[in-house]
């Protein structure tokens, strides 16, 4: 359950930026290869935001699919797991996306 610690980090970072203002929406970007389960984050979020300026905020999670480029032939490869095989047979892939763990933006209540 490392998602609990991760969620605490999210709430701490957003609170720091929001100051005293209420947060109405938080948008995260989570890569599908990142070992973080969006559903677990949603579950933890409801618990962790209690008593903070994020208490009534809506959580949005953008799930970023895994994409890579084959170092052998240069073809684009879709990844469902951290590793994969290009249609040319090569397993030497350069990952381009799917490992994101970012807070994209937050929306603050009108002052």
């Amino acid at each position, binding site marked *: 359950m490392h998602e609990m610690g991760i969620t605490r980090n999210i709430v701490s970072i957003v609170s720091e930026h929001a100051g005293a203002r209420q947060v109405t929406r938080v948008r995260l970007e989570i890569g599908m290869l990142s070992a973080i389960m969006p559903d677990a984050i949603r579950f933890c979020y409801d618990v962790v935001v209690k008593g903070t300026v994020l208490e009534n905020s809506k959580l949005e999670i953008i799930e970023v699919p895994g994409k890579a480029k084959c170092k052998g032939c240069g073809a684009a490869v879709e990844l469902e797991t951290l590793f994969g095989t290009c249609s040319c047979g090569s397993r030497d892939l350069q990952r381009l996306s799917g490992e994101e763990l970012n807070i994209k933006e937050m929306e603050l*209540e009108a002052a």
Partner: protein
Amino acid sequence: MCGTCGCADGSKATIINLQTGEHVHMDSKAQDDAPGAGAGHAHHHGHGHADHGHGHSHDHSHVEAHSHGHEHHDHAHPHAAALGTTVQLEQAILQKNDELAARNRAWFQGREILSLNLVSSPGSGKTSLLERSIVDIKDDLDIYVIEGDQQTANDAERIKASGAPSVQINTGTGCHLEADMVMQGLRQLKPKAGSIVMIENVGNLVCPALFDLGETAKVAILSVTEGEDKPIKYPHMFQASSLMILNKIDLLPHVDFDVERCFAYAKQVNPDIEILQLSARSGEGLDSWHDWLKSQSRQVSEKVFA
């Protein structure tokens, strides 16, 4: 919780210096402070067990020596004044850990220290391997050990008994070590320049892959009593590791472990991973591991001003 005095909240990490017996409890806010801060409070537990009278000295020294470094925020500050605004943050969730890890890494590099983050499932033989290596190569290399476990100082006691200085970090409910815990451990351990610091992570093949500690490299240890498909079951860990050690090979005649298949899986997940096979118990293959350590340690020194 501090196993000696029971004075801390269970979710906070405790650091036990095996050389001095000092316990340091990390404040949960430690990560928010300037990285060099000596957050936490130190207790010295001295137990004088005599037949008559029970001496229990309990000195609290509150360490509050914060070194106030400059905290640079590269992200956009919202300066939250506008109405109902959307604020672009574009901040990595693990940024704080990553920043502290970068400090640890610079600290290690400046002292020409090879630091290895040893990761595995519980019971793969990390501590046994360390005990053996400490005894076998103590004439050639200085080894220091940071032990991570949820509870007990048993592993650090074992390391100390083999002759290396050690610090135990108890993560409480935490399932992995984080960069600030290692930083606190290093403050206690004070490793010499040119030495090797082994960081034995909590036995767990999932979360430790996410948290950079500032190590030179991660070493994943797998034993033949586990499944040979672990590299593809836990790809994050094997992908993040520079070396995979297959331990307990003395047991191969008694188990159905397919070595070739295991190595193929590891290479599938991480084509660059190096692989060594050994038995910490019988000693077979240990020379290759010790040669690897010496060569990595040399490279660390050579790279400092490269």
